[in-house]
């Protein structure tokens, strides 16, 4: 018996999954804003991201067990309510520690909602396989869309709005599910279509973790590069990174034409690594050069995430538990990726900043402008660097006002451009090692993908 019309219920479940899994990456573009507003460090602000993913990784399987025990309808409704309530707490946080605690609670609610949704979907869409496809696609879409949506909200409203807007969306998704909760007896028992294997699919989940680490790095590092390195506003960065979800849409269409989950997973991992390789080798500090790598990452992430999720869930029951394992693997991968790469790129940023400042000073010293102006410029640029401690500075104001004499003016403008070029080089190069390591991680995921060949959908 259906407690609600299937179509709104499918939409509500997909929305719930997309919303929760988008939350893993939605704050990425807001991190620089949070970093400034809450006066913390780069390493500290990454915990806004890490805490959510860590709790999701730890809570997904226990949440699935709870969902099966209390009934998936009830679990999903309660999960969404917790998610919304914690979202409110995130939105009103004025301190990093309270924000991180609220994010942890949000992840608990999210884990409950996502795993319960997977338990509800087969009865709603008619088969486990279709349920898996809807669930995996909603998750991949949410993860891909998250940063762009978060960036738009940060720029147009505030970083707090990212969390506050989740409240009505969560409640809207909860309404059709509440009807299921009321009829839990009728929808709570799902006949598994295929064999019961019990154990989680080790290789698919391991590959999911590795690929998720690489994808998280791609999103997180690219956003930091655009905002902190190249000084784009969050809305500009959101427009730039929206290339990835657009490519992901194409990727999911492409995946429909290929039956083999292993081939889709392998191609996806290669695309992700190729894109990350491109990001590690950016030949200039221009937005346009990030587009081709982003297309590859976007294509790859939709192919690999859905293929590996299907493989991990295929033929396994109960779906919620195995879905919990995939959630756990994905978010553990994100956490490991961030924890491993954060110290590397923070160290690199500091090093490259130093090199860029020295290179910039050399540009000033070797320029044809007269010596006293050189010293004055060096002093003003040094002051700018001190004002923007730890970040890549914009040095334009150090050159204001420009000299009146046309020759001196032209020399000063050229000098400013050369100096900015050195800073751009430093900012871009600071991320290269981390992108390269993430690319390597994506390639290493091919090993468990190859080992997962015995179980094909």
């Amino acid at each position, binding site marked *: 018996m259906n407690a609600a019309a299937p179509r709104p219920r499918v939409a509500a479940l997909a929305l719930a999954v997309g919303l929760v899994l988008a939350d893993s990456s939605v704050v990425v573009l807001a991190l620089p804003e949070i970093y400034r507003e809450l006066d913390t460090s780069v390493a500290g602000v990454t915990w806004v991201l890490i805490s959510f993913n860590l709790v999701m990784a730890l809570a997904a399987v226990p949440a699935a067990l709870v969902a099966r025990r209390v009934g998936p309808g009830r679990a999903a409704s309660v999960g969404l309510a917790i998610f919304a309530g914690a979202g409110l707490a995130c939105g009103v946080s004025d301190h990093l520690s309270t924000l991180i605690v609220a994010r942890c609670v949000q992840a608990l609610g999210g884990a409950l909602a996502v795993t319960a949704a997977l338990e509800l979907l087969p009865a709603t869409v008619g088969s486990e396989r279709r349920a898996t496809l809807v669930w995996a696609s909603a998750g991949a879409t949410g993860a891909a869309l998250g940063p762009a949506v978060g960036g738009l909200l940060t720029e147009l409203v505030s970083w707090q709005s990212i969390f506050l807007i989740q409240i009505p969306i969560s409640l809207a998704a909860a309404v059709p599910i509440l009807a299921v909760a009321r009829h839990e007896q009728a929808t709570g028992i799902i006949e598994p279509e295929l064999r019961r294997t019990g154990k989680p699919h080790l290789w698919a989940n391991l590959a999911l973790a590795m690929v998720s680490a690489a994808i998280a790095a791609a999103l997180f590092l690219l956003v930091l590069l655009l905002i902190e390195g190249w000084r784009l506003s969050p809305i500009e960065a959101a427009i730039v990174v929206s290339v990835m979800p657009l490519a992901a849409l194409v990727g999911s269409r492409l995946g429909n034409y290929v*039956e083999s989950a*292993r081939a889709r997973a392998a191609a996806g991992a290669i695309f992700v690594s190729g894109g990350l390789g491109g990001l590690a080798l950016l030949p200039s500090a221009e937005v346009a050069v990030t587009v081709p790598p982003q297309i590859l990452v976007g294509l790859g992430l939709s192919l690999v995430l859905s293929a590996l999720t299907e493989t991990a869930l295929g033929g396994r029951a109960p779906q919620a538990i195995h879905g919990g394992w995939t959630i756990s693997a994905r978010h553990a991968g994100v956490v490991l990726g961030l924890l491993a790469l954060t110290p590397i790129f923070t160290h690199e940023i500091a090093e490259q900043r130093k090199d860029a400042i020295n290179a910039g000073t*050399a540009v000033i010293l070797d320029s044809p402008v007269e010596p006293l102006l050189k010293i004055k410029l060096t002093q003003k640029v040094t002051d700018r660097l001190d004002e923007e401690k730890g970040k890549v500075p914009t040095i334009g104001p150090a050159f204001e006002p420009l000299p009146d004499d046309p020759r001196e003016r032209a020399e000063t403008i050229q000098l400013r451009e050369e100096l900015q070029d050195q800073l751009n080089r430093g900012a871009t190069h600071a991320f290269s090692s981390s992108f390269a390591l993430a690319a390597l991680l994506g390639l290493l995921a091919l090993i468990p993908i190859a080992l997962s060949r015995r179980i094909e959908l």
Partner: protein
Amino acid sequence: MTRARLLVVGSIVLSLALVGIYLAAGGASYAPEKSQNPCKPRPWTNPDSLQEIAQQISLSALDGAACQLGVTRETLARALTTEEARDRFAKRYGIDDAKLAEAIQAGLVRAVDDAENAGALSPLIAGPLRGFVEDVPLDQAIELVKGGSSLVGTFRNFLGPAGDLLEQLLP
């Protein structure tokens, strides 16, 4: 070729093409230029004017002082911009005023040597100028490094009436 193989091969080809194109476009070397070793002399360009000589003397003096202190020329230049910057530099590198003065004087001497070797200063001027910079006090030495042209001006004042000959002796 099956669709599955086509997809995998396509992903490999596109990924390698992107990496190859970015490598060819200089992606591997897109980084800030490294600071030069200040102990290695830089080539002198043919100076056209007194100001250009002064610029090169100033840079050469910075190199010489930085070489003696074991820092880059750029670090030293930033340290000399203000007194606060100098204090921070002194604290960070454990360099007191006496050591800094000694290094800058050595740098100025090297600058005069470099200028003489490059034919930018006549030996008639280089000799007394060298003697002059060897004993110049720290604050004045810093000002001389900051604006090489003031080195010539200060030296002209130091020479008194004979200073008028200076312009004629410069190339």
